[in-house]
């Protein structure tokens, strides 16, 4: 029986962009984490008014220090409460969960395009680090709503070229990540992406036949495959066919499931 739950201690919590927090947790459970694109199912606190955990992606891992980093937007009740927690507090974490990005798809020397939108950017950072370790060549295209929302530009720069787009044009290129890809004529051997559904749809339309992998979001109950909350339809599948985002995903090859 592999241990999948633990209490991790907050060692750092900082606002890295408007309402976006970088949370570093430390503890033994981190030993079990290594796959980029997997997520943690985080209990907000011990009080009993918010019963559901929050799924948040792994943004980085430091195996030596047994530390895991997440970056999340404090938008609703739960994440706001999480953001108010101080260093030293313990957080109840389930994970690592799900199927992450397939690292082995990008061979040494291949061109990889990381395409992230908003709060979908975090898992791409750890993915990029691992890909660079493996000898892939990484270009990142990161889209945000506006300048105040941009984070992690510098860390991504250490992995390779970075293009930033903002919807309101207040920073980087104006428009969406797909605009940047077109304008810069960016090409790739493998593409990995995480972000809002419209972005994933646009990428799917363009790259249905390519080696491309996307990470999806859905409201979750259990996070472990038991409750059937997080299913999606399969493209060209039978009416009752499905994939569970929590256990079959959150990462799928482009075109496998209906967005």
């Amino acid at each position, binding site marked *: 029986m592999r241990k999948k739950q633990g209490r991790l201690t907050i060692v750092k919590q900082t606002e890295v962009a408007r309402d976006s927090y970088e949370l570093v947790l430390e503890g033994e459970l981190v030993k079990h984490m290594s796959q980029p694109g997997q997520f943690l199912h985080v209990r907000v606190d011990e009080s009993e008014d918010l019963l559901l955990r929050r799924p948040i992606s792994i943004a980085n891992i430091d195996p030596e220090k047994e530390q895991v980093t997440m970056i999340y937007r404090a938008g609703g009740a*739960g994440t706001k409460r999480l953001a108010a927690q101080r260093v030293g507090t313990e957080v109840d974490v389930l994970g690592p969960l799900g199927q992450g990005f397939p690292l082995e798809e990008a061979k040494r020397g291949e061109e990889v395009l990381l395409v992230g939108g908003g709060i979908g950017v975090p898992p791409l950072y750890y993915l990029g680090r691992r890909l660079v370790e493996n000898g892939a060549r990484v270009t990142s295209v990161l889209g945000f709503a506006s300048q105040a929302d941009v984070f992690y530009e510098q860390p991504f720069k250490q992995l390779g070229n970075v293009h930033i787009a903002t919807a309101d044009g207040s920073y980087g290129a104006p428009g969406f990540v797909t605009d940047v890809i077109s304008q810069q004529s960016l090409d790739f051997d493998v593409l990995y992406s995480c972000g809002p559904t419209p972005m994933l749809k646009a990428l799917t339309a363009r790259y249905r036949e390519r080696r491309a992998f996307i990470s999806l979001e859905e409201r*979750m109950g259990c996070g472990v495959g038991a409750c059937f909350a*997080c299913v999606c339809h399969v493209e060209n599948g039978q009416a*009752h066919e499905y994939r569970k985002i929590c*256990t079959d995903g959150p990462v799928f090859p482009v075109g496998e499931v209906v967005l």
Partner: protein
Amino acid sequence: MERLQISLPGLEMKNPVMPASGCFGFGKEYGQFFDLNQLGAIAIKATTKEARFGNETPRVAETKAGMLNAIGLQNPGLQGVIEQELPRFDDYDVPILANIAGSTMDDYIEVAAELSQQRNVSAIELNISCPNVKQGGIAFGTVPEIAAELTKEVKAVSAVPVYVKLSPNVADIVAIAKAIEKAGADGLAMINTLLGMRIDAKTRRPVLANQYGGLSGAAIKPVALRMIHQVSQQVDIPIIGMGGIQTAEDVIEFLLAGASCIAVGTANFTDPYTCPNIIRDLPHWLDRLEVQSITDLIGGSWNE
């Protein structure tokens, strides 16, 4: 661990704790967290005749101390359950309560007949109360005569004892329970979820794609306790109690209300170790209450 044992029709339980139907899949997921043999029993996800996708997503929403779900009985269908899911329990020594649902009486009968003959199925839990199925389902659970008729038909074909799972969305739960007892049910399971909804103030739309969903979790515990308290004084068949159970203390409340054993639903999502933790803590509660066995507590709030 004899102190925790309870023997109910079809269910020889090491302890009174089982995961609730729909909150534990078909067992394998939580089997990664602890040894399922610790459990008193397992109620598996509802089986319908045909495979079902269920409702569109979002299917769950959070509420204060509770959650809404509108899964819509997704399951691989009768044959899928028999072929893919049930065989896995060969490796375990724990009674299985197979929850069944349908939209017509014939569906129920067919599923009950076949599922009840499978090895690994110890008893049937007749879900006449799922609020998320549009046709049929809900009416079965709110009209005593229809509930009774369905019970009778399913009893007639079932090879194992039948527990009927009641809907709390009724004015007179006792009338329904009595009708079902009279129709030959071996036990009752209560309660299923309360019908509720959430609206997203920003988008102005219902949060669930299905609009309405079933409310579960700590929020509904007082309603569950009241209904079990009312019903257990009026029927002689055992009750599987559920609705918001999170701790061993909650379990004691349900036993005192009149439940003979209990099921844990939503709390599995908050903490996958809820069931084993309760099983670990129950003996301390027996010591504290100075009783030898959990059976000494059943109905203790009214029969002493």
